[in-house]
């Protein structure tokens, strides 16, 4: 990672609020367990703290009741922090980490991850942009 771009990104995130969010990640499945495959046993979850981050709404809440709900909020995440979590939690890459995460917890609210984009400079990622939406179970 290019240190200069990463430091600038982290400084920007801190100056815009620099909050911490939680990545809600299920434990690995139990190999060959029919109960999990048929939805009987639900996995344990762990919440990984990650920050600095900036959270903002990008669509009005009225849109979330549409049949095909798009992301209604956006999370900007420090690539430095993501790299630390990837290393400490044993995931091969940030892509694998986000693919395994079932949600992001912001102020106690569970938000589904709809998209992940990386922002790069000189081939190095210095920021992640996540598209989020409220979990369907929380809308009723």
């Amino acid at each position, binding site marked *: 990672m290019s240190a200069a771009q990463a430091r600038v990104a982290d400084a920007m995130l801190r100056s815009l609020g620099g909050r911490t969010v939680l990545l809600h990640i*299920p434990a*690995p*499945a*139990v*190999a*060959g*367990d*029919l*109960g*999990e*495959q*048929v*939805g*009987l*046993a639900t*996995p344990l979850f762990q919440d990984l703290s990650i920050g600095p981050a900036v959270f903002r709404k990008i669509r009005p809440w009225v849109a979330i009741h549409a049949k095909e709900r798009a992301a209604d909020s956006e999370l900007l995440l420090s690539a430095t922090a993501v790299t630390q979590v990837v290393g400490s939690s044993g995931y091969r890459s940030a892509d694998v980490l986000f693919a*395994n995460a*079932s*949600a992001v917890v912001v102020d106690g609210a569970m938000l*589904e*991850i*709809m998209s992940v984009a990386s922002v790069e400079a000189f081939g190095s990622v210095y920021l992640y942009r996540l598209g989020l939406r409220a979990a*369907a179970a929380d809308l009723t």
Partner: protein
Amino acid sequence: MLSVQLAKDTFYATLRDRVAAGNAARTVVLRGVVRPGVVVTENEFPGAAVDGISPSDVFCLRWTSLVADTQGAMPLLTLGCEIRYATDGTSGTSGLDRGRMLAAMDAELIAAVSMVPQRAGSLLVTEAAAGGTSTIVTTGTNVFWGDISLKPATMKNERMERTAEIEVFCYGQ
């Protein structure tokens, strides 16, 4: 009704085992574990890209309908099951073999569903204690199914897709 879930679980487990026996290489990695390439979408994370046919080269089951015939001594339940699958072909051939890959999946599915007997003893799956695996008990009743109906293949960009439908039956308890 308990029988509905028994029928769903039994048909899935039977199809999974038969597909794995027919082609052990038909696998999918979900939540870090390699499984036979048969998935019930309603049992996976909504955002885990298993809704419909997002993962390629995997059979995705979706339970679509339920009819209860209550005229007999025991109600006959008919469950509609939709099996969706897709392939991009192999990257080494730039996807030129996607037709053959879809044909291979057709053959695997037909063989698994049409294998005699077209029934299985219904399985009662009970949740495991913490850290263990679930317990499976055969209840003594049967789940049975009809012939499979394959819909026309469709193209979505470079991806070939097909939907198959089958009816699964059991007697209610």
